[in-house]
Protein backbone atom coordinates (compact mmCIF):
# COMPACT_ATOMS: atom_id res chain seq x y z
CA UNK A 1 0.00 0.00 0.00
CA UNK A 2 1.35 3.44 -0.87
CA UNK A 3 1.72 6.13 1.70
CA UNK A 4 -1.01 8.22 0.05
CA UNK A 5 -3.67 5.51 -0.04
CA UNK A 6 -2.89 4.58 3.53
CA UNK A 7 -3.56 8.12 4.68
CA UNK A 8 -6.91 8.28 2.91
CA UNK A 9 -8.10 4.94 4.20
CA UNK A 10 -7.00 5.93 7.69
CA UNK A 11 -8.92 9.20 7.44
CA UNK A 12 -12.16 7.35 6.66
CA UNK A 13 -11.51 4.66 9.20
CA UNK A 14 -13.86 3.96 12.07
CA UNK A 15 -10.85 2.99 14.13
CA UNK A 16 -7.31 4.00 13.36
CA UNK A 17 -4.28 3.01 15.39
CA UNK A 18 -1.01 4.51 14.25
CA UNK A 19 2.39 3.56 15.61
CA UNK A 20 0.82 2.73 18.97
CA UNK A 21 3.17 1.61 21.74
CA UNK A 22 2.18 0.56 25.20
CA UNK A 23 4.20 -0.31 28.29
CA UNK A 24 3.24 -1.88 31.58
CA UNK A 25 6.01 -0.35 33.65
CA UNK A 26 9.21 -1.48 31.97
CA UNK A 27 7.49 -4.20 29.96
CA UNK A 28 6.49 -3.24 26.44
CA UNK A 29 3.14 -4.87 25.69
CA UNK A 30 2.45 -3.31 22.27
CA UNK A 31 5.02 -2.59 19.58
CA UNK A 32 4.29 -0.21 16.72
CA UNK A 33 0.65 -1.18 16.20
CA UNK A 34 -0.87 0.07 12.95
CA UNK A 35 -4.44 -0.90 12.37
CA UNK A 36 -7.21 0.70 10.44
CA UNK A 37 -10.77 -0.59 10.58
CA UNK A 38 -13.43 0.65 8.17
CA UNK A 39 -17.03 1.17 9.19
CA UNK A 40 -18.81 -2.17 9.02
CA UNK A 41 -15.63 -4.16 8.91
CA UNK A 42 -15.22 -7.28 11.05
CA UNK A 43 -11.80 -8.07 12.43
CA UNK A 44 -10.82 -11.24 14.24
CA UNK A 45 -7.74 -10.91 16.42
CA UNK A 46 -5.90 -14.05 17.45
CA UNK A 47 -2.55 -15.07 18.81
CA UNK A 48 -0.95 -16.96 21.66
CA UNK A 49 -1.63 -16.12 25.30
CA UNK A 50 0.18 -12.99 26.39
CA UNK A 51 0.62 -11.69 22.85
CA UNK A 52 -1.21 -8.45 23.63
CA UNK A 53 -4.67 -9.01 22.10
CA UNK A 54 -6.57 -7.81 25.16
CA UNK A 55 -4.18 -4.94 25.65
CA UNK A 56 -4.72 -3.82 22.06
CA UNK A 57 -8.50 -3.69 22.19
CA UNK A 58 -8.50 -2.23 25.70
CA UNK A 59 -6.42 0.67 24.42
CA UNK A 60 -9.18 1.51 21.95
CA UNK A 61 -11.61 2.47 24.74
CA UNK A 62 -8.82 3.59 27.05
CA UNK A 63 -9.28 0.92 29.66
CA UNK A 64 -5.52 0.88 29.20
CA UNK A 65 -3.57 4.03 28.48
CA UNK A 66 -1.15 3.95 25.56
CA UNK A 67 2.08 5.91 25.65
CA UNK A 68 3.00 6.53 22.03
CA UNK A 69 1.30 6.91 18.69
CA UNK A 70 -2.28 7.89 18.04
CA UNK A 71 -5.69 6.22 18.24
CA UNK A 72 -8.73 7.67 16.53
CA UNK A 73 -12.29 6.41 16.89
CA UNK A 74 -14.85 7.90 14.56
CA UNK A 75 -13.57 11.42 14.18
CA UNK A 76 -12.20 11.65 17.71
CA UNK A 77 -8.53 11.52 18.56
CA UNK A 78 -8.34 9.54 21.79
CA UNK A 79 -6.27 11.62 24.18
CA UNK A 80 -5.73 11.01 27.86
CA UNK A 81 -8.12 13.65 29.15
CA UNK A 82 -11.61 12.61 30.22
CA UNK A 83 -13.35 14.61 27.49
CA UNK A 84 -12.12 12.50 24.59
CA UNK A 85 -12.17 9.30 26.63
CA UNK A 86 -15.87 9.86 27.38
CA UNK A 87 -16.62 10.66 23.75
CA UNK A 88 -14.90 7.47 22.59
CA UNK A 89 -16.48 5.24 25.22
CA UNK A 90 -19.93 6.37 24.15
CA UNK A 91 -19.18 5.09 20.65
CA UNK A 92 -17.50 1.84 21.62
CA UNK A 93 -19.17 -1.14 23.27
CA UNK A 94 -17.21 -3.91 24.93
CA UNK A 95 -17.98 -7.50 25.84
CA UNK A 96 -15.72 -9.30 28.29
CA UNK A 97 -14.71 -12.90 28.77
CA UNK A 98 -16.22 -12.94 32.28
CA UNK A 99 -19.49 -11.19 31.21
CA UNK A 100 -19.15 -8.67 34.06
CA UNK A 101 -22.87 -8.23 34.54
CA UNK A 102 -23.73 -6.24 37.65
CA UNK A 103 -24.98 -8.84 40.15
CA UNK A 104 -27.17 -6.47 42.18
CA UNK A 105 -29.14 -5.20 39.20
CA UNK A 106 -31.79 -7.04 37.26
CA UNK A 107 -31.13 -7.86 33.62
CA UNK A 108 -33.23 -4.88 32.61
CA UNK A 109 -31.44 -2.57 35.06
CA UNK A 110 -28.09 -3.83 33.79
CA UNK A 111 -29.17 -2.62 30.36
CA UNK A 112 -30.64 0.73 31.41
CA UNK A 113 -28.04 1.95 33.91
CA UNK A 114 -25.61 3.51 31.45
CA UNK A 115 -28.18 4.87 28.98
CA UNK A 116 -29.87 6.67 31.88
CA UNK A 117 -26.73 7.84 33.70
CA UNK A 118 -24.43 8.41 30.77
CA UNK A 119 -26.69 9.35 27.85
CA UNK A 120 -29.37 10.96 29.97
CA UNK A 121 -32.27 8.90 28.60
CA UNK A 122 -35.47 8.80 30.64
CA UNK A 123 -36.16 5.57 32.45
CA UNK A 124 -39.02 4.76 30.07
CA UNK A 125 -36.93 5.39 26.96
CA UNK A 126 -34.06 3.35 28.31
CA UNK A 127 -36.37 0.46 29.23
CA UNK A 128 -38.00 0.50 25.82
CA UNK A 129 -34.62 0.36 24.14
CA UNK A 130 -33.40 -2.36 26.50
CA UNK A 131 -36.44 -4.58 25.99
CA UNK A 132 -36.06 -4.37 22.23
CA UNK A 133 -32.42 -5.40 22.42
CA UNK A 134 -33.10 -8.16 24.94
CA UNK A 135 -35.66 -9.40 22.46
CA UNK A 136 -33.02 -9.39 19.76
CA UNK A 137 -30.65 -11.52 21.82
CA UNK A 138 -33.64 -13.75 22.64
CA UNK A 139 -33.68 -13.16 26.34
CA UNK A 140 -36.60 -10.76 26.81
CA UNK A 141 -38.49 -13.04 29.17
CA UNK A 142 -35.60 -12.96 31.67
CA UNK A 143 -35.63 -9.17 32.01
CA UNK A 144 -36.69 -9.12 35.66
CA UNK A 145 -34.23 -11.80 36.80
CA UNK A 146 -30.80 -11.27 38.30
CA UNK A 147 -27.55 -12.29 36.56
CA UNK A 148 -26.89 -15.18 38.97
CA UNK A 149 -30.15 -16.78 37.82
CA UNK A 150 -29.01 -17.03 34.20
CA UNK A 151 -26.71 -19.49 32.46
CA UNK A 152 -23.34 -18.33 31.18
CA UNK A 153 -24.55 -18.16 27.61
CA UNK A 154 -27.58 -16.12 28.61
CA UNK A 155 -25.43 -13.80 30.67
CA UNK A 156 -23.09 -13.17 27.78
CA UNK A 157 -26.02 -12.40 25.48
CA UNK A 158 -27.27 -9.91 28.07
CA UNK A 159 -23.79 -8.38 28.13
CA UNK A 160 -24.02 -7.92 24.37
CA UNK A 161 -27.47 -6.35 24.66
CA UNK A 162 -26.25 -4.11 27.47
CA UNK A 163 -23.42 -2.79 25.30
CA UNK A 164 -25.78 -2.30 22.34
CA UNK A 165 -28.13 -0.21 24.50
CA UNK A 166 -25.56 2.59 24.21
CA UNK A 167 -25.99 2.40 20.42
CA UNK A 168 -22.26 2.12 19.81
CA UNK A 169 -20.66 2.40 16.40
CA UNK A 170 -18.07 -0.22 17.26
CA UNK A 171 -18.16 -3.40 19.32
CA UNK A 172 -15.09 -4.94 20.92
CA UNK A 173 -15.19 -8.57 22.06
CA UNK A 174 -12.50 -10.01 24.31
CA UNK A 175 -12.76 -13.82 24.13
CA UNK A 176 -16.52 -13.73 24.64
CA UNK A 177 -16.93 -17.51 24.51
CA UNK A 178 -13.84 -18.67 26.39
CA UNK A 179 -15.53 -18.84 29.80
CA UNK A 180 -18.57 -20.70 28.48
CA UNK A 181 -19.47 -24.35 28.67
CA UNK A 182 -19.15 -25.82 25.16
CA UNK A 183 -22.89 -26.21 24.69
CA UNK A 184 -23.40 -22.46 25.17
CA UNK A 185 -20.77 -21.24 22.77
CA UNK A 186 -23.03 -21.46 19.75
CA UNK A 187 -25.83 -19.26 21.11
CA UNK A 188 -23.34 -16.46 21.77
CA UNK A 189 -21.60 -16.87 18.41
CA UNK A 190 -24.97 -16.82 16.66
CA UNK A 191 -25.78 -13.54 18.37
CA UNK A 192 -22.46 -12.12 17.21
CA UNK A 193 -23.02 -13.37 13.68
CA UNK A 194 -26.41 -11.64 13.55
CA UNK A 195 -24.80 -8.45 14.78
CA UNK A 196 -22.14 -8.74 12.11
CA UNK A 197 -24.75 -9.28 9.41
CA UNK A 198 -26.51 -6.12 10.53
CA UNK A 199 -23.39 -4.17 9.68
CA UNK A 200 -21.78 -3.54 13.05
CA UNK A 201 -18.09 -2.68 13.07
CA UNK A 202 -16.47 -5.38 15.20
CA UNK A 203 -13.11 -6.37 16.58
CA UNK A 204 -13.25 -9.81 18.13
CA UNK A 205 -10.49 -11.47 20.07
CA UNK A 206 -11.40 -15.11 19.69
CA UNK A 207 -10.01 -18.50 18.89
CA UNK A 208 -13.28 -19.63 17.32
CA UNK A 209 -11.87 -20.16 13.87
CA UNK A 210 -15.23 -21.21 12.43
CA UNK A 211 -16.57 -17.80 13.42
CA UNK A 212 -13.53 -16.14 11.88
CA UNK A 213 -14.06 -18.00 8.58
CA UNK A 214 -17.72 -17.08 8.51
CA UNK A 215 -17.74 -13.40 9.41
CA UNK A 216 -14.27 -11.89 9.44
CA UNK A 217 -13.17 -9.54 6.70
CA UNK A 218 -9.65 -9.80 8.02
CA UNK A 219 -7.92 -12.03 10.52
CA UNK A 220 -5.04 -10.48 12.42
CA UNK A 221 -2.40 -12.58 14.09
CA UNK A 222 -0.41 -11.10 16.98
CA UNK A 223 2.68 -12.36 18.74
CA UNK A 224 4.84 -10.72 21.39
CA UNK A 225 2.93 -7.46 21.30
CA UNK A 226 3.14 -6.93 17.55
CA UNK A 227 0.92 -7.59 14.56
CA UNK A 228 2.66 -10.38 12.66
CA UNK A 229 0.24 -11.03 9.85
CA UNK A 230 -3.17 -9.99 8.58
CA UNK A 231 -5.20 -11.44 5.74
CA UNK A 232 -8.74 -12.32 4.71
CA UNK A 233 -9.73 -15.60 6.38
CA UNK A 234 -9.52 -17.71 3.24
CA UNK A 235 -5.95 -16.67 2.73
CA UNK A 236 -5.07 -16.62 6.41
CA UNK A 237 -6.11 -20.21 7.02
CA UNK A 238 -4.94 -21.77 3.77
CA UNK A 239 -1.80 -19.82 3.13
CA UNK A 240 -0.29 -18.28 6.25
CA UNK A 241 2.95 -16.51 5.40
CA UNK A 242 4.78 -16.52 8.69
CA UNK A 243 6.23 -19.43 10.52
CA UNK A 244 4.73 -18.29 13.85
CA UNK A 245 1.27 -18.08 12.28
CA UNK A 246 1.58 -21.60 10.89
CA UNK A 247 2.71 -22.91 14.24
CA UNK A 248 -0.16 -21.16 16.02
CA UNK A 249 -2.74 -22.43 13.53
CA UNK A 250 -1.32 -25.91 13.80
CA UNK A 251 -1.80 -25.84 17.55
CA UNK A 252 -5.22 -24.29 17.60
CA UNK A 253 -6.78 -26.23 14.71
CA UNK A 254 -5.07 -29.44 15.74
CA UNK A 255 -6.94 -29.26 19.02
CA UNK A 256 -10.28 -29.90 17.35
Amino acid sequence: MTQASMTTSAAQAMIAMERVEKWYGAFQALHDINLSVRAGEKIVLCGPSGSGKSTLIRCINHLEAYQKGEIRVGGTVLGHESKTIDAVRREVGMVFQQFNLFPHLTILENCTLAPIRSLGLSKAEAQGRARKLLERVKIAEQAEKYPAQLSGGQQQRVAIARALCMQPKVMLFDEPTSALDPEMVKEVLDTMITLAEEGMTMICVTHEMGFARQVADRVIFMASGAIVEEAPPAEFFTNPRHERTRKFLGEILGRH
Partner: protein
Amino acid sequence: MNYTLDFTPVIEGLPNLLLACLGTFLLALCGMVLAIVIGIGGVILRDSRFKPLRWLVIGFVEVIRNTPFLVQIFFIYFALPLAGIRLDPTPTAILALGINGGAYAIEIIRGGVQSISKGQMEAGLALGLHKAQVFRFIVLKPALRAIFPSLTSQFVLLTLSTSIASAISAYELTSVSQRIESDSFRSFEVYFTVTLFYLVISWLMMRIFALFSARYFNYPVK
Protein backbone atom coordinates in the same frame (compact mmCIF):
# COMPACT_ATOMS: atom_id res chain seq x y z
CA MET B 1 -24.74 -15.59 101.77
CA ASN B 2 -27.08 -13.30 103.63
CA TYR B 3 -27.53 -10.65 100.94
CA THR B 4 -31.22 -10.06 100.32
CA LEU B 5 -32.15 -9.04 96.84
CA ASP B 6 -34.24 -5.90 96.66
CA PHE B 7 -35.35 -4.80 93.24
CA THR B 8 -37.64 -2.08 94.55
CA PRO B 9 -35.37 0.82 93.47
CA VAL B 10 -35.03 -0.77 90.04
CA ILE B 11 -38.75 -1.19 89.69
CA GLU B 12 -39.37 2.36 90.82
CA GLY B 13 -36.73 3.58 88.39
CA LEU B 14 -38.04 1.45 85.54
CA PRO B 15 -39.68 4.27 83.56
CA ASN B 16 -36.39 6.18 83.72
CA LEU B 17 -34.38 3.12 82.78
CA LEU B 18 -36.59 2.31 79.80
CA LEU B 19 -36.39 5.88 78.57
CA ALA B 20 -32.61 5.66 78.98
CA CYS B 21 -32.65 2.48 76.87
CA LEU B 22 -34.32 4.50 74.15
CA GLY B 23 -31.64 7.15 74.63
CA THR B 24 -28.91 4.55 74.19
CA PHE B 25 -30.64 3.14 71.15
CA LEU B 26 -31.02 6.53 69.48
CA LEU B 27 -27.48 7.54 70.39
CA ALA B 28 -26.19 4.38 68.73
CA LEU B 29 -28.41 4.84 65.69
CA CYS B 30 -27.33 8.44 65.11
CA GLY B 31 -23.70 7.46 65.68
CA MET B 32 -24.04 4.70 63.08
CA VAL B 33 -25.55 6.96 60.46
CA LEU B 34 -22.67 9.37 60.94
CA ALA B 35 -20.19 6.48 60.94
CA ILE B 36 -21.58 5.19 57.63
CA VAL B 37 -21.33 8.63 56.07
CA ILE B 38 -17.76 9.04 57.31
CA GLY B 39 -16.97 5.49 56.27
CA ILE B 40 -18.17 5.85 52.68
CA GLY B 41 -16.84 9.39 52.34
CA GLY B 42 -13.51 8.28 53.77
CA VAL B 43 -13.24 5.40 51.32
CA ILE B 44 -13.81 7.79 48.43
CA LEU B 45 -11.22 10.28 49.71
CA ARG B 46 -8.83 7.45 50.63
CA ASP B 47 -8.48 6.66 46.92
CA SER B 48 -8.64 10.20 45.64
CA ARG B 49 -6.09 11.39 43.12
CA PHE B 50 -5.19 14.24 45.47
CA LYS B 51 -2.46 12.84 47.72
CA PRO B 52 -2.89 15.14 50.77
CA LEU B 53 -6.50 13.95 51.03
CA ARG B 54 -5.35 10.33 51.06
CA TRP B 55 -2.84 11.07 53.80
CA LEU B 56 -5.48 12.92 55.78
CA VAL B 57 -7.75 9.86 55.74
CA ILE B 58 -4.91 7.48 56.58
CA GLY B 59 -3.83 9.73 59.45
CA PHE B 60 -7.39 10.04 60.72
CA VAL B 61 -7.88 6.27 60.76
CA GLU B 62 -4.55 5.69 62.50
CA VAL B 63 -5.20 8.29 65.21
CA ILE B 64 -8.70 7.06 65.97
CA ARG B 65 -7.84 3.38 65.97
CA ASN B 66 -4.85 3.84 68.24
CA THR B 67 -6.32 6.01 70.97
CA PRO B 68 -8.94 5.14 73.63
CA PHE B 69 -12.53 6.04 72.90
CA LEU B 70 -12.91 7.66 76.32
CA VAL B 71 -10.04 10.02 75.56
CA GLN B 72 -11.61 10.82 72.18
CA ILE B 73 -14.88 11.76 73.86
CA PHE B 74 -13.13 13.97 76.38
CA PHE B 75 -11.05 15.52 73.65
CA ILE B 76 -14.10 16.45 71.60
CA TYR B 77 -16.05 17.54 74.67
CA PHE B 78 -13.33 19.83 76.00
CA ALA B 79 -11.54 20.82 72.79
CA LEU B 80 -14.55 21.99 70.79
CA PRO B 81 -15.42 24.83 73.20
CA LEU B 82 -11.87 26.13 72.73
CA ALA B 83 -12.68 26.38 69.02
CA GLY B 84 -15.83 28.28 69.91
CA ILE B 85 -18.21 25.33 69.36
CA ARG B 86 -20.34 24.44 72.33
CA LEU B 87 -22.19 21.12 72.11
CA ASP B 88 -24.36 19.42 74.71
CA PRO B 89 -23.17 16.04 76.00
CA THR B 90 -25.53 14.01 73.82
CA PRO B 91 -24.61 15.65 70.47
CA THR B 92 -20.98 15.39 71.54
CA ALA B 93 -21.44 11.68 72.16
CA ILE B 94 -23.05 11.22 68.73
CA LEU B 95 -20.15 13.04 67.10
CA ALA B 96 -17.60 10.95 69.00
CA LEU B 97 -19.39 7.68 68.20
CA GLY B 98 -19.67 8.67 64.54
CA ILE B 99 -16.02 9.63 64.28
CA ASN B 100 -14.83 6.53 66.09
CA GLY B 101 -17.16 4.16 64.25
CA GLY B 102 -16.38 5.98 61.00
CA ALA B 103 -12.66 5.29 61.24
CA TYR B 104 -13.33 1.56 61.62
CA ALA B 105 -15.99 1.69 58.92
CA ILE B 106 -13.49 3.21 56.47
CA GLU B 107 -11.20 0.21 56.85
CA ILE B 108 -14.04 -2.29 56.69
CA ILE B 109 -15.80 -0.77 53.68
CA ARG B 110 -12.47 -0.34 51.89
CA GLY B 111 -11.96 -4.08 52.22
CA GLY B 112 -15.36 -4.57 50.60
CA VAL B 113 -14.54 -2.26 47.72
CA GLN B 114 -11.27 -4.10 47.14
CA SER B 115 -13.12 -7.41 47.01
CA ILE B 116 -15.09 -6.29 43.95
CA SER B 117 -13.50 -7.62 40.78
CA LYS B 118 -11.80 -5.12 38.50
CA GLY B 119 -14.01 -6.37 35.70
CA GLN B 120 -17.05 -4.78 37.33
CA MET B 121 -15.48 -1.34 37.25
CA GLU B 122 -14.13 -1.86 33.75
CA ALA B 123 -17.58 -2.83 32.50
CA GLY B 124 -18.96 0.37 33.99
CA LEU B 125 -16.22 2.54 32.52
CA ALA B 126 -16.56 0.87 29.12
CA LEU B 127 -20.26 1.78 29.23
CA GLY B 128 -19.30 5.43 29.52
CA LEU B 129 -19.93 5.88 33.24
CA HIS B 130 -17.59 8.08 35.23
CA LYS B 131 -15.49 6.85 38.13
CA ALA B 132 -17.85 8.34 40.69
CA GLN B 133 -20.89 6.77 38.98
CA VAL B 134 -19.14 3.42 38.85
CA PHE B 135 -18.55 3.63 42.59
CA ARG B 136 -22.05 4.77 43.40
CA PHE B 137 -24.07 2.50 41.10
CA ILE B 138 -21.87 -0.55 40.56
CA VAL B 139 -19.35 -1.02 43.34
CA LEU B 140 -21.01 0.26 46.50
CA LYS B 141 -23.85 -2.18 47.02
CA PRO B 142 -21.96 -5.42 46.37
CA ALA B 143 -19.06 -4.03 48.43
CA LEU B 144 -21.34 -3.33 51.39
CA ARG B 145 -22.87 -6.74 51.04
CA ALA B 146 -19.47 -8.41 51.14
CA ILE B 147 -18.52 -6.79 54.44
CA PHE B 148 -21.94 -6.50 56.04
CA PRO B 149 -21.28 -9.12 58.75
CA SER B 150 -18.14 -7.24 59.86
CA LEU B 151 -19.96 -3.95 59.74
CA THR B 152 -22.72 -5.44 61.88
CA SER B 153 -20.33 -6.55 64.62
CA GLN B 154 -18.53 -3.21 64.48
CA PHE B 155 -21.84 -1.45 64.96
CA VAL B 156 -22.86 -3.69 67.83
CA LEU B 157 -19.57 -2.63 69.43
CA LEU B 158 -20.48 0.96 68.71
CA THR B 159 -23.84 0.40 70.39
CA LEU B 160 -22.15 -0.92 73.52
CA SER B 161 -19.57 1.86 73.60
CA THR B 162 -22.40 4.38 74.05
CA SER B 163 -22.03 3.46 77.72
CA ILE B 164 -18.65 5.24 77.72
CA ALA B 165 -20.53 8.43 76.92
CA SER B 166 -21.78 8.29 80.53
CA ALA B 167 -18.44 9.91 81.36
CA ILE B 168 -19.75 13.19 79.96
CA SER B 169 -23.29 12.48 81.20
CA ALA B 170 -24.84 11.97 77.81
CA TYR B 171 -28.39 10.73 78.09
CA GLU B 172 -28.08 6.95 77.93
CA LEU B 173 -28.58 3.81 79.99
CA THR B 174 -25.32 3.65 81.95
CA SER B 175 -25.44 7.20 83.33
CA VAL B 176 -29.09 6.87 84.33
CA SER B 177 -28.43 3.57 86.04
CA GLN B 178 -25.44 5.04 87.85
CA ARG B 179 -27.74 7.64 89.32
CA ILE B 180 -30.22 5.03 90.52
CA GLU B 181 -27.38 2.95 91.93
CA SER B 182 -25.83 5.82 93.87
CA ASP B 183 -29.23 6.81 95.28
CA SER B 184 -30.14 3.27 96.37
CA PHE B 185 -26.82 1.43 96.84
CA ARG B 186 -28.49 -1.55 95.14
CA SER B 187 -25.49 -2.06 92.82
CA PHE B 188 -26.05 -5.70 91.94
CA GLU B 189 -29.76 -5.33 91.22
CA VAL B 190 -29.22 -2.23 89.11
CA TYR B 191 -26.35 -3.60 87.00
CA PHE B 192 -27.96 -7.00 86.65
CA THR B 193 -30.98 -5.30 85.11
CA VAL B 194 -28.85 -2.98 82.99
CA THR B 195 -26.87 -5.94 81.67
CA LEU B 196 -30.10 -7.56 80.53
CA PHE B 197 -31.17 -4.33 78.89
CA TYR B 198 -27.90 -4.04 76.99
CA LEU B 199 -28.31 -7.62 75.80
CA VAL B 200 -31.75 -6.81 74.48
CA ILE B 201 -30.52 -3.63 72.80
CA SER B 202 -27.66 -5.50 71.10
CA TRP B 203 -29.99 -8.22 70.00
CA LEU B 204 -32.39 -5.64 68.60
CA MET B 205 -29.60 -3.95 66.66
CA MET B 206 -28.56 -7.25 65.15
CA ARG B 207 -32.17 -7.97 64.17
CA ILE B 208 -32.40 -4.58 62.51
CA PHE B 209 -29.20 -5.22 60.60
CA ALA B 210 -30.37 -8.66 59.55
CA LEU B 211 -33.70 -7.28 58.35
CA PHE B 212 -32.00 -4.46 56.48
CA SER B 213 -29.60 -6.92 54.92
CA ALA B 214 -32.40 -9.22 53.80
CA ARG B 215 -34.27 -6.34 52.20
CA TYR B 216 -31.43 -4.33 50.71
CA PHE B 217 -29.22 -7.20 49.54
CA ASN B 218 -32.09 -9.08 48.00
CA TYR B 219 -30.32 -10.28 44.87
CA PRO B 220 -29.05 -13.85 44.47
CA VAL B 221 -25.37 -14.63 44.21
CA LYS B 222 -23.78 -17.80 42.94
